[in-house]
């Protein structure tokens, strides 16, 4: 039975991720898209790299954020680079928008998965083209969809409930950033691979900006945590 499953010499079966990035959160807001990601690259259980840019521009209209294996993300950026280059070479005044990039990536991810050699990432593509806001997600097995708010990794469990409660169609930029920071703070508290150094990216019709890295204020001084067992002698 074993030989049946692992035949063909060195068939590349499921890999293992080595250097990984944690969650990405993306939301649509009044003027466009906002995405947030921290800058951590974990090597197993150590936080090895603390300045990994996981939000990158793609062409004129889109932004891609990736969680999962960082080397696979770099490979994806190479593919996208080629894609945009060929698009530019047509020199026809058209440029690929976020919807097209999303579709291209879906095909890439799904085809790799079918060959049992996935790119170990969960991607979020966001952008604005001709006034249309677009926010889509692709996973490493090729599952893709678009929505008003997205999260990958731990963000699925910790950020989605908050986004479902508090997201609105007409968020202003400040409100959007506050909502993202609320989610990122939650992840900081409860995701072991999160680091307190994050970037927020904004895309509107006018263009794209990725903020400088900054850190969130956290609160660890609840009285109950200072001396937890003060009233309950005999417990821990």
């Amino acid at each position: 039975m074993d030989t049946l499953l692992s035949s063909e010499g060195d068939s590349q079966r499921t890999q293992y991720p080595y250097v990984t990035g944690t969650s990405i959160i993306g939301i649509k807001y009044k003027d466009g898209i906002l995405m947030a990601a921290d800058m951590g690259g974990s090597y197993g259980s150590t936080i090895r790299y603390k300045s990994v840019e996981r939000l990158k521009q793609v062409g004129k209209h889109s932004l891609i954020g990736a969680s999962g294996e960082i080397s696979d993300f770099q490979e994806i950026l190479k593919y996208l680079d080629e894609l945009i280059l060929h698009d530019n070479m047509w020199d026809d005044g058209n440029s690929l928008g976020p919807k097209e990039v999303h579709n291209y990536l879906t095909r890439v991810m799904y085809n790799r998965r079918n060959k049992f050699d996935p790119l170990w990432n969960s991607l979020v593509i966001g952008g604005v083209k001709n006034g249309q806001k677009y926010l889509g997600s692709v996973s490493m097995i090729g599952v893709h969809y678009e929505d008003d708010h997205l999260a990958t990794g731990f963000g699925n469990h910790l950020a989605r409930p908050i986004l479902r409660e508090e997201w609105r169609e007409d968020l202003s930029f400040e409100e959007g950033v506050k909502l993202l920071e609320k989610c990122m703070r939650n992840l900081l508290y409860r995701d072991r691979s999160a680091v307190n150094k994050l970037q927020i990216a904004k895309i509107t019709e006018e263009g794209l900006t990725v903020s400088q890295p900054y850190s969130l204020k956290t609160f660890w001084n609840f009285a109950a945590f200072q001396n937890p067992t003060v009233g309950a002698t005999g417990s821990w």
Partner: protein
Amino acid sequence: MLTKKGLKPPGYLKTGTTIVGVVCKDCVVLGADTRATAGSIVADKNCEKIHNMAPNILCCGAGTAADTEAVTDNISSQLKLHRYHTGRESRVVTALTLLKSHLFRYQGHVSAALVLGGVDVTGPHLHTIYPHGSTDTLPFATMGSGSLAAMAIFESEYREGLTRDEGVNLVTKAICSGIFNDLGSGSNVDICVIEKGKTEYLRNHLTPNPRTYISSKGYTFSKKTEVLHTKITPLKELVDVVQVGGDAMEE
């Protein structure tokens, strides 16, 4: 052998439930959803996950229903006997120690993850107890498969010195987050408020998933069928039994 093929043994089982607890100013508020699952089937749409340990101590249970039920009943009996013996109100640490020793003795095979809360002479207390017997003392706690969804609400909205009503609202919000974002949790919200000298069990405090019918009258047929002809045939006919000859019962 299977681990060589890449099979990861299941970590610890967080079975379908969202249970939470919060310590407010002088009271403890416990909350739970009401869905019991057997695999992917909802076995009970409105079960009770908040168990009585003592008049002033209650315990929410996640994990195998039989285990949580049995272990809370057992320790509840032990606490009652202890109350008769000492003549005093039970303390939360007593329940805590009895539960954790029991679970540790069974080395995690009793799959019960509990949120224990109560108010005794030493004040309000809230603890979490894990299947292997470890415990935490916390101002806010969540357990079960919906614990992350509920914890997201707690981490963003918990403040110190909550009043009773604020506590109830926060717990309701956290359980609703579990109900709507976790597949293992659902149906209604049960709340329990424990204060010094008073325990309020708000069963089905919120029912955000009611059974709805399309029309209140059921189905109505739009057109009445025309009656063309009526013939009535009685099913029972009265007959006279005539005795011809010989005995009545003969033949």
